[in-house]
């Protein structure tokens, strides 16, 4: 630590090792920029592989507006609103961070403390929102049927709006016998490991209900909407159905391509981990501000360095937001 701190009486053109000070930047700031650039390359790699896979399946990729539609405490179909709120929270926490840096330049300890605290709270709200977003994505909304070749078939009403399995599937209580411990050595709890309906229940209810239609993953590129097929054709698809899926995980995804779920978990997870470490670092710096470490040191450069990291996390979110939710 001592080695990186430029003290009042040292020559400000050199780093403490004695070398010339490149770009007129302090050692810590320079290293933070090195880290940010390498991290930016990592995220570019992730986003570009996402983009490439998306183009590869451009005619069957899930449509984000149909996937992320939840808003807390309100029931209904609200694409984009919640994630827009998350974006605002992160931008706002960036603003309080830059205000903290600004106050640090003027050696106003009280203001730095307040703005650091607001930044930490903003970060925590964002992280909580992301956890909630994950919860909805993992739990699923409508449920779907997965076919032999991994394609997903979803169900819509006559207006083309997606409907949940629970809205039309009639449970056939005789069809499935609950497994019990006395019947086998490798006992798995039935309730937790099985989807709520069987394929035959879904097919029977689908054919019994004229207002339910089947939608394939295929996107009509002329109108950029998923294709709804006739009942007759739907039965050809359903003949190949192997499983009922609820929600998304790394193996299966009710919204469409499993690859979409994999990328979503990986990229937003990696970003969320950055936010999490950012909050931890912010908390450490926050307490350092309170006990007066930087007041004694004579400058608040540490706040500026952690600020650089925090803004970078915001910057990455701007791109994640565009590629996962907008484009």
């Amino acid at each position, binding site marked *: 630590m001592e080695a990186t701190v430029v003290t009042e009486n040292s020559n400000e053109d050199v780093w403490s090792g004695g070398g010339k000070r490149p770009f007129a930047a302090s050692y810590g700031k320079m290293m933070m920029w090195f880290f940010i650039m390498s991290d930016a390359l990592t995220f570019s790699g992730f986003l570009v592989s996402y983009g490439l896979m998306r183009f590869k399946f451009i005619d069957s990729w899930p449509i984000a507006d149909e996937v992320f539609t939840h808003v807390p405490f309100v029931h209904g179909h609200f694409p984009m609103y919640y994630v827009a709120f998350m974006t605002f929270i992160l931008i706002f926490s960036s603003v309080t961070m830059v205000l903290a840096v*600004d106050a640090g330049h003027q050696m106003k300890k009280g203001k730095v403390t307040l703005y650091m605290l607001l930044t930490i709270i903003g970060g925590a709200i964002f992280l909580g929102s992301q956890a909630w977003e994950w919860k909805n994505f993992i739990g699923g909304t409508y449920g779907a049927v997965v076919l032999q070749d991994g394609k997903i078939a979803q169900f819509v009403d006559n207006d083309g709006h997606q409907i949940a399995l629970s809205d039309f599937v009639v449970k056939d209580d005789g069809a499935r016998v609950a497994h019990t411990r006395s019947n086998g050595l490798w006992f798995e709890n039935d309730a937790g490991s099985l989807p709520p309906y069987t394929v035959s229940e879904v097919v029977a209810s689908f054919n019994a209900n004229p207002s339910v239609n089947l939608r394939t993953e295929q996107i009509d590129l002329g109108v950029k909407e998923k294709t709804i097929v006739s009942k007759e054709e739907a039965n050809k698809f359903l003949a190949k159905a192997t499983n009922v899926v609820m929600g998304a995980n790394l193996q299966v995804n009710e919204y469409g391509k499993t690859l979409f779920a994999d990328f979503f978990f990986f990229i937003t997870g990696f970003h969320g981990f950055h936010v999490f470490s950012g909050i931890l670092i912010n908390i450490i710096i926050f307490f350092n501000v309170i006990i007066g470490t930087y007041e004694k040191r004579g400058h608040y450069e540490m706040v500026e360095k952690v600020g650089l990291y925090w803004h970078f996390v915001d910057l990455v979110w701007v791109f994640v937001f565009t590629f996962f939710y907008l484009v």
Partner: protein
Amino acid sequence: MAHTEAHESHTGLIWKVFGFLSIITIVEVILGIMKPESLHLTPFLGTSLLNWIFLILTLVKAYGIAWYFMHLREEKASLRRAIVWTCVFLICYLTALVLIEGGYIHDQLAPYLSWS
């Protein structure tokens, strides 16, 4: 030490930048919800016109954050260029790569996928 000099407060500028970033985000969200057909369904250089608007607005936002919040405008020109130009070339390269090669992969793969 640079920080012992009197620093003027940039609070006004910071709030202006915040307003600017907010407006861009609101425009993005409105376009994302409405998806006007004239933009959404018009292809342009490998993707739709709407996607190009999103990409450009995103880069403008990135510029706002890097330039004002990350204080790039206060850094020495040499450091600034080392960072900014690296990113500019990277983004141009990656965008071209995804738009050209991604479309190619789809063209080659699509005939092998049956939808009936």
